[in-house]
């Protein structure tokens, strides 16, 4: 109380104290920048190193790994080999299909369930919420033995459907938690107005609520798509065939075969990294906003 009462007595910009210690503060800021720059370099350097060397000749890779490619050392041989000897674009398509379909199912099913759980009071509501919350903490990977048996029985082994189903099941618990929080903030007047006009509950959800949750989709996407895209475990176990291979598994298998061919290995790594870099450049703002919004809740 006292703190808040005192506040207006001081100017918003405390001119005097800032000037008194200005040299000290600037020095402090400089140190902060130095520390952050150093860590940024540490975070980016390994990735940059791979990208730079992927377009160099074998000799140049080994002679001077830190040098940028020159006219003599520039080559795209590694990339040509990777593209020729694997279905890299196909793997990429598989990953895209799996993650986007899973995201779609997670958002739609998750929103429907969180609407029911946050809007209506019914028997078993708390129990169902708890049941779903269990999935946030307990990794789905522990059920792999039975998931594989189930997929064999359903004849879904080596299909992308199997991966979509597993990633949907994996992403739903957290999505329901994030979306429920979001739905509680939808103003009651909006819903009541629709109800007064005699609009049914199902229609209210699809036409009033669903369009409103768009901002939350970014948060859900961050927490569901990235783990699904990067996963090695389930593609390895449920869908290892050539036609259903995802990028992550494809790169892992390719590098396993060509360990000694440095040009190809570096090119394969770059091919896996570059699309992510482009997507990140385009969407990093939304992604980080989604990430922090989800945490603050």
């Amino acid at each position, binding site marked *: 109380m006292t703190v808040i009462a005192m506040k207006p007595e001081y100017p918003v910009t405390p001119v005097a104290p800032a000037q008194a210690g200005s040299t000290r503060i600037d020095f402090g800021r400089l140190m902060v920048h130095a*520390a952050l720059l150093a860590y940024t370099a540490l975070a980016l350097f390994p990735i940059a190193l791979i990208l730079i060397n992927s377009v160099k000749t074998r000799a140049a890779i080994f002679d001077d790994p830190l040098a940028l490619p020159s006219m003599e050392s520039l080559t795209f041989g590694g990339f040509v080999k990777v593209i020729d000897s694997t279905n890299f674009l196909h793997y990429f398509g598989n990953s895209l299909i799996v993650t986007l379909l899973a995201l779609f199912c997670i958002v739609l099913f998750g929103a429907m*369930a969180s609407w029911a759980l946050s809007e209506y009071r019914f028997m078993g509501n708390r129990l169902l919420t708890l049941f779903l919350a269990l999935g946030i903490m307990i990794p789905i990977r522990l059920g792999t033995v039975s998931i594989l048996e*189930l997929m064999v029985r359903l004849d879904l082994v080596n299909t992308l459907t199997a991966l979509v189903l597993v990633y949907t099941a994996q992403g739903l618990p957290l999505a329901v938690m994030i979306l429920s929080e979001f739905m509680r903030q939808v103003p009651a007047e909006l819903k009541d107005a629709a109800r007064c006009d005699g609009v049914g509950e199902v229609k209210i959800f699809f036409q009033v609520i669903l369009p409103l949750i768009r901002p939350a989709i970014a948060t859900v996407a961050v927490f569901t798509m990235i783990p699904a895209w990067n996963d090695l475990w389930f593609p390895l176990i449920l869908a290892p065939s050539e036609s259903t291979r995802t990028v992550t598994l494809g790169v892992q298998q390719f590098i396993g075969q060509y360990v000694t061919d440095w040009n190809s290995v570096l090119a394969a790594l770059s091919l896996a990294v570059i699309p992510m870099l482009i997507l990140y450049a385009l969407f990093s703002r939304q992604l980080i906003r989604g990430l*922090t919004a989800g945490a603050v809740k």
Partner: protein
Amino acid sequence: MKHAVHTVRPWQLVLFLAPALLVYTLFSAMPLAQTLAQGFFSADENGKAVYAGLENFRTILLDPDWSAGFWNAMVNNARFFAIHMLLQNPIGLALATLFSLKGLRGARTYRTLIFLPTLLSVVIIGFIWQLILSPLWGVGEKLMGFAGLAGLFAPWLGQEETALTTLSIVSVWQYIGMPMMLIYAALLAVPDEIIEAAHVEGAGAMRIFWQIKLPLIYPTLGLVTILTFVANFNAFDLIYSVKGALAGPNYSTDILGTLFYRTFFGYQAQVGNAYLGSAVATLMFLVILAGVGLYFVAVQRRLTRFAL
């Protein structure tokens, strides 16, 4: 919750809940329950499942052929977690504190760039570091040479004593973005008035951090700890892509995830065993459950959420 309780009809509720519950139950909850149950069975000579009581667990925990492997993986996993707690979370906290400083220029750029590795696949990261640390290529040695430390370079990934620590640090390097972002979001939520008031009262930046910001984000630090715990005791991808299912050299990088994979699918001469695999999964489940339980009882209860 108070409004329009009576307007929803049961079929509408079912319609809203069915898809999510169906997929979640069928592909997550039930397989988990079945796996836990399967740990209590084993196959007879015809391959039929018969109830075996605690036999599988006795084998894994006490049988000389198995227990050494299990405890090795368990201790390695604990070390893997300890290194994350010692490095990843403190550094994440430090970075988040630095770029949440008021009016810091380029804060968004730092945040965006430092988060980048977290976005990439563990498989890719594992291979990248494998190349950098490879004595064949010599980049690591060269870089250390700039600091005059070339003599200290060793094939860390290949040595029994250093392989696990090296892989843990690679994992820390990759995942630092997660705690960093969670802590950053929590720091953003600290009200400016409190910081300003402290500043006006003459508190320095260090004191504001230790006595105001840090206590206010304890709940987030608790959350980060338990998320790290669950992720670490469920890890697999990094070890598998760098070291393979055998988690060499001489199982020195073996953790519960790779042990689970080998037990279930088999490797080299050993045939895979779904029942023993399930028992390993059950043990992993118990470890994670113990951690989560401890978190809720000891940490969550004591930490009252500050009404911000």
